[in-house]
């Protein structure tokens, strides 16, 4: 079964057309990257899959369920990490994990333990989130996204705004969790090196349409490029 099926997806915001017939598939168990420059339509696509936005036309299915018609069921299978997500500043890290866990599991404490393990924040989890650095907040958010063991984790720019060390740690965390649990991960990034490191397959998006799709190796080979950055430039005619 396909984890995600996107067909002819169009999304308008008033006169502005953010997606112009976007189509791609994500297989179950793979780490799939949606890559493109700012304003290409990555976030809009992920928000539609996460049931936050409704498509203007086209269809989006998650594990065979239509995201518009069966949004409640889709939300039970999906965990979404927005690009600019924050956490409740006046709660402690542990309280925040417990708050999220209580919507997913009977065994809240077991899920919180898992969240604590993924976050690696240890005793700092007892402190209020407002005392955390940006990197610590991102780790906490990633922990809450993955601790629920979703069938599909949607990560929008997971390392956005992080310094080299935190970004490295977060990438390692995602890769480790995907290998360990075999869950499907759909992520977006404009960092081509990150995508190359993390993803089994990628789709290049530009101007609201998918212009290329395949594994990083296949794409490099097809365009005779050294890395995905060069692939992107070639594929979009900017090279």
């Amino acid at each position, binding site marked *: 079964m396909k984890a995600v099926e996107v067909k002819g997806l169009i999304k308008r*915001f*008033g006169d*502005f057309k*953010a997606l112009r017939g976007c189509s791609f598939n994500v297989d179950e168990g793979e780490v799939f990257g949606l890559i493109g420059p700012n*304003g290409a339509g990555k*976030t*809009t696509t992920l*928000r539609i899959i*996460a*049931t*936050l*936005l*409704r498509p203007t036309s086209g269809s989006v299915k998650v594990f065979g369920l239509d995201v518009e018609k069966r949004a*409640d069921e889709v*939300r*039970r299978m*999906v*965990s*979404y*990490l*927005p690009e*600019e*997500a*924050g*956490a*409740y*500043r*006046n*709660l402690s890290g542990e*309280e925040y994990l417990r*708050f*999220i866990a*209580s*919507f*997913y*599991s*009977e065994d*809240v404490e077991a899920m919180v333990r898992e969240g604590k393990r993924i976050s690696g924040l240890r005793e700092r989890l007892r402190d*209020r989130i407002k005392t955390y650095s940006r990197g610590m907040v991102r780790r906490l*958010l990633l922990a809450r996204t993955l601790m629920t063991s979703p069938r599909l984790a949607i990560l929008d720019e997971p390392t956005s705004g992080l310094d080299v060390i935190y970004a490295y740690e977060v990438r390692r965390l995602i890769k480790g969790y995907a290998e360990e649990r075999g869950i499907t991960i759909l992520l977006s990034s404009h960092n081509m090196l990150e995508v190359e490191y993390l993803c089994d397959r990628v789709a290049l998006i530009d101007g609201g349409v998918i212009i290329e799709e395949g594994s990083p190796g296949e794409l490099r080979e097809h365009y005779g490029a050294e890395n995905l950055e060069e692939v992107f430039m070639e594929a979009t005619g900017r090279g």
Partner: protein
Amino acid sequence: MANPLLTIVSKEVKELLRDPKILLGIIVMPLILFPAMGSAIGVSQRAVSRAVRRMAIAVYNEDGGLASQEIIEFLSKDNEIYIIEAENLEEALKRFMEAESSILLYIPEGYSERMASGERCMVRIYVHLRRLNMAETGKASSVEQLLMIYGEECSLRRIRRILKEAGEELQPEAVRRPISISYASILKGVVLDVPPGAIFGIIMSQNIMLPMMIMMMNIFAIQMAATSIALEKEQKTLETLMTLPIGKITILAGKLCGSILIAIAGAVSYMIGFSYYMRSTLGFIPQLTIETLSEAGLRLSPLGLTLLGAIIFLTLLLSLALSLSIAVFAEDVRSAQSLVGLIYIPIMMPSIILMFTDVDMLPNAMRWLMLIIPYTHTVIASKAIFLGRYTPVLVAVAYMLVFTVITLYITTRIFSTERIITARVRRWRIRGHEG
């Protein structure tokens, strides 16, 4: 799994109460500020009464006769008297203005002669308003009262002498005031040995306190709800919240309940602080009137209490729903609070107008305008409940219920659409997010 509604409510209460601005501004400040203000006013009032108790009174006695000496002696029993020696009133006033005293009693020439011949005498009080404070006015009325008492004594003395000369055995007090009036009021069929002024005092206090309490509670609730939703946007937590496996209605209900709890805590704190302030300054609800309240049947019956609870609950729910519907369009707490300021107008207008009048006494156009505003019905109902008139209360409950259901429906529609994520106010224009 834990109850999702309780989880959201608990998170809301924690988040709001741990925000120092909310904890201090809405719950702690009224408990500190009002008693502090009350104490400050109490201290100044005590200072005024001390100043009035033993006054320095300047006297310019142009008369110099026996009767004028008598009045000066009467005043000197409890006050300090300074006799001003001058050639004329103009000079006396000049000296008075240079002196410390702020009260001058002027006894004109011929006073004693007129008193002796049984004619009406005139004295004049000059008040030097140096500081324009309450003590100066208090002193003037105290001197006036002392002179009235002295006048009463003079009058009775004269009546006694006349009666003796006429050989009449009548009571001088009865001759002076042949009719003595005592008041009773009939309220809701009960005869009370209480002057109507006292009952009016109670009603007035309710007319002011109740709308004010409801108004404050609504404003707190609106602030809470606006802050609650705007915090989600400001902290970038709304998107995550909206993708959790819980219904949008549960999220909305959780926010409503959390805000109601904090608003009630804020209103209770406000009323405790405010009633302390009123007691310590104006003696707003003296013990006598509280006892009279019960005697007069103006205390709430169980049905009245239930209806009052229902109307306040509906009012709060309406305010919260309106606040959430408006605040979802704001990007941060500051813009949310300025946006929901629009709701303060229909809340404050009926509360303030109906403190002083009834809706029926307003001009036609104004009356209908007021009746369209749902908050008017809250004030009308809360007054009617105290008078035991339940029909207007039921009408108000029905109107509020319809209005609240419609508003809640609109709010749930807004929560169910993507506008909650995309809409934002930029310079008072609502736009969709583009990206």
